[in-house]
């Protein structure tokens, strides 16, 4: 983790510092080996996992996702993917906390619709209240609505994560001005979660001032996931540095880069 030790620009979530601003999911890979190699190449330190029924009887010795993601290296971010109501989302978080020995950091998502997987923001707000009151550190998936983002922060979520576009769509940032507004209003980290398709989308999110990006399909569904994971890492780093550097103002007409003075003709 050379970037983690050398880079002074740290992401702080729920009081813990991270060197990488790329958070990755662990779903949709060909196998565990590809999962591990892609995550390694991404440089991510926070990785999402889902919570599902254990296989009974069959495949009992199948490798578990947690076995290929050593806990001393990665911070687990269990999600509530697949939850369409407050109750199942809250239950899922409590199961994850028990599974991970009291681990408090969760990614809350309460979905509203199968086709779009857009968040049900009303249920998300209710679930966030319950989870925050129950002591969870809640990173919350939401839509790109600055008002909802503000409310989720007010409830006490430790990070607000607006979508760039529908989950798994790879459409890129559909509403950059809203993302910028959410960033400008927020005092907690804002991460784009879902919808990025390629490295320039990740860079754009960072140039808008986001604190990080969470993605899964954009890496896992690339023809070469390991190569794309590295591209995403660089896209995130480039976008972050460009944001910190402060881009030049865009102008309509040209401005010569070479001096006029000293021309010899």
């Amino acid at each position: 983790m050379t970037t983690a030790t050398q880079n002074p620009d740290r992401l702080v979530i729920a009081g813990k510092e991270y060197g990488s601003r790329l958070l990755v999911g662990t779903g949709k890979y060909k196998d565990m080996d590809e999962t591990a190699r892609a995550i390694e190449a991404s440089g991510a330190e926070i990785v999402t996992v889902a919570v599902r029924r254990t296989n009974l009887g069959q495949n009992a010795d199948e490798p578990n996702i947690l076995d290929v993601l050593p806990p001393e290296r990665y911070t687990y971010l269990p999600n509530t993917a697949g939850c369409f109501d407050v109750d199942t989302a809250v239950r899922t978080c409590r199961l994850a906390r028990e599974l991970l020995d009291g681990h408090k950091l969760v990614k809350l998502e309460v979905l509203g619709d199968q086709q779009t997987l857009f968040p049900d923001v009303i249920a998300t707000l209710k679930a966030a209240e319950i989870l925050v009151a129950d002591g969870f550190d809640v990173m919350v998936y939401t839509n790109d609505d600055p008002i909802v983002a503000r409310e989720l922060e007010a409830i006490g979520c430790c990070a607000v994560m607006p979508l760039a576009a529908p989950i798994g769509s790879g459409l890129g940032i559909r509403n950059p001005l809203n993302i910028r507004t959410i960033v400008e209003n927020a005092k907690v980290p804002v991460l784009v979660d879902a919808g990025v398709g390629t490295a320039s989308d990740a860079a754009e999110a960072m140039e808008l001032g986001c604190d990080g990006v969470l993605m899964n399909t954009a890496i896992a569904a690339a023809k070469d996931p390991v190569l794309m994971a590295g591209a995403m890492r660089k896209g995130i780093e480039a976008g972050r540095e460009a944001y910190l550097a402060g881009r030049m103002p865009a102008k309509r007409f040209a401005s010569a880069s070479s001096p006029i003075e000293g021309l010899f003709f």
Partner: protein
Amino acid sequence: MQIEINGDRTEVAEAITMAELLEQLELTGKRLAVEVNAELVPRSRFAEHRLAADDRVEIIHAVGGG
């Protein structure tokens, strides 16, 4: 008696404990979490938690996801 485990009806011994059930399922020591009738049962209570007929048991673990 019959209970439901991860959605499947299963015959188990009367008043079986959670620890005994997990042993029968060859899941002892595995990384998992359990709820009964939508309530979490902490690992520390597996030995004392007795199941009743028609209990709905969910045994979960972590999988890849985004």
